[in-house]
């Protein structure tokens, strides 16, 4: 039985508009409207074309309705700069992640959610502090952001979308929080994104505020959560040189730019010192290419589940089949978080070509 909502989902996932899909299929725009509204299903040969063009197997188009993150509950990093097509691609990636997650949770029991609602804390910095205390990590630098999120019941999936504007996003599915990370970024950038999304989850669960103000708060939260004030004051000194910053950032595993900002924010560096370092960081190209990059963080939950499935004889192909999606689709949502590098030229993580990829691949 053809399910029109699945066609709409698959189309948006691939970044197609109705008319661009109609052109690809060689049908009238009117026909695509009809398929998606359920007026009539596509003919058999058109359906085969659809499978090819959108890279989804036949079975995908006859499944039940899939739950999608709704635009008003999902938090995007750069909503203002984002095109609606990019937003849809991200949201539908989320829908497929929900689908995969449902399947995994039918087989495994994942850690329960332990995220307090801190939307009433006076500032994002206070919220970051409270959360650290609540989780009992005090002032310690975070060893691994993904593991921490997973341990607190957040489901983490990778977002293999080639768009600068989509860094990451987060959403609630009922009472389960999800974070999607763009795994094409440097490890430091990704950790910051993860902390930023954590900020949205604990500060903006009720939805407000929106837009710029919410982004500003999530950024303040991320800086304070990754680099707690007392820890920064204990290790940084007021007049750092750039080479000193490169040393220091190893403590909190953060980007140079974020550390420089934070030193200024906690009052260690003057406006003048801060601006000077900003200029130096930009001049050396460290904004786009992080010096001394840290190794990429890898999901622990997905690794454990994939390993257990493999013991049961369920590899990546069988899993994709069970989910009625292509193996490539599965790879994009999982393997960015399971391997340190996604294969294929354009997905190489930035700046760390010398770093050997971790040899974790679950087949």
């Amino acid at each position, binding site marked *: 039985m053809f399910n029109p909502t699945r066609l709409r989902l698959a189309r948006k996932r691939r970044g197609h508009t109705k008319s661009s899909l109609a052109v690809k299929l060689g049908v009238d725009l009117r026909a695509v409207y009809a398929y998606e509204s359920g007026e009539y299903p596509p003919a058999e040969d058109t359906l085969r074309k659809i499978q090819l063009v959108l890279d989804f197997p036949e079975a995908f188009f006859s499944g039940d309705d899939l739950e999608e993150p709704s635009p008003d509950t999902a938090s995007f990093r750069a909503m203002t700069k984002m095109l609606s097509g990019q937003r849809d691609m991200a949201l539908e990636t989320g829908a497929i992640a929900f689908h995969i997650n449902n399947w995994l949770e039918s087989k495994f029991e*994942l850690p329960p959610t332990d995220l307090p609602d801190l939307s009433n804390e006076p500032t994002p910095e206070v919220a970051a502090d409270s959360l650290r205390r609540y989780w009992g990590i005090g002032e310690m630098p975070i060893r691994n952001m993904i593991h921490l999120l997973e341990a607190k019941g957040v489901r983490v999936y990778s977002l293999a979308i080639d768009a600068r504007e989509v860094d990451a996003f987060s959403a609630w599915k009922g009472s389960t929080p999800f974070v999607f990370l763009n795994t094409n970024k440097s490890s430091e950038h990704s950790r910051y994104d993860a902390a930023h999304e954590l900020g949205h989850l604990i500060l903006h669960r009720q939805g407000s505020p929106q837009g710029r103000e919410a982004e500003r708060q999530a950024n303040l939260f991320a800086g304070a959560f990754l680099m707690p004030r007392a820890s920064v004051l204990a290790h940084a000194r007021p*007049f*750092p*040189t750039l080479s000193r910053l490169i040393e220091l950032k*190893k403590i909190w595993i953060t980007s140079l730019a974020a550390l420089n900002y934070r030193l200024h924010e906690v009052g260690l560096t003057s406006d003048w*010192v801060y601006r000077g370092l900003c200029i130096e960081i930009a001049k050396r190209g460290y904004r786009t290419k992080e010096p001394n990059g840290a190794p990429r963080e890898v999901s622990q939950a997905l690794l454990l589940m994939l390993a257990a499935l493999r013991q049961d004889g369920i590899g990546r192909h069988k899993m994709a089949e069970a989910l009625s999606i292509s193996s490539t689709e599965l790879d994009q949502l999982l393997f960015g978080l399971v391997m340190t590098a996604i294969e294929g030229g354009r997905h190489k993580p930035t700046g760390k070509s010398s770093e050997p990829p971790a040899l974790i691949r679950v087949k």
Partner: protein
Amino acid sequence: MSSSAAPSPRKRILTDPIDVRGRLHDLGLEEDDLRSVANRGLAARLSCTENHPLQSAGYYAWSEAVCAMREIHIPRGWERSDESNLPFTVNADRSVAIAIATGDENTGCPDREPCTKSSKGPKTRSVVDANVGQILMFPDLVLKPEHLAQINARMTWLLLMHFDPIAREVRSELSRPVSMDQDQRVDGWDERIILRSIPLDGDLVRVSPTGNTPPQSPEIVLEIKRRA
């Protein structure tokens, strides 16, 4: 020396962290607070560029340190008091007053006697004289605020700061002045509390995997159970 010389046998120089903490505690102060005062002064000094007038670095440092001294201590019951153009920070029962001054290169060095960098005015002269009077009055006591509160008197301390570009550090001390030289610089101290210096840049503080790096949050081992 133009001022009455302080009786030298009772001079105290405190460097041991426990002695320093204890004596500052007598006065209602904390070492780290005083160091952050010096630090704020330093930050102000270093925000001066070539475009600033040459004299401004020292003035900015002093002025910002005075402000920091007050901002940190007013919430704890201290008050500001401007007397004849000399800014003090004074404790609640008005038995302790602190002024800020830039010191020479001997500042913060226990084996050398520091002196203020610039000449001081008649107000400084009068507080130095008052300090000397108190020593003559209580020759055998380590003066505490309560002694002075009893006789309605006030002891004055100088927070001396010195910015040392060669050693790349800021040294500071809280010292009780008892004499001035012919140029009206403060050059003699009955008691000196030497504070830990503040390094200027990372070259003095190394982060190494074994040394200064703080421990990271614990390694997480997830538990994921199969459903029956």
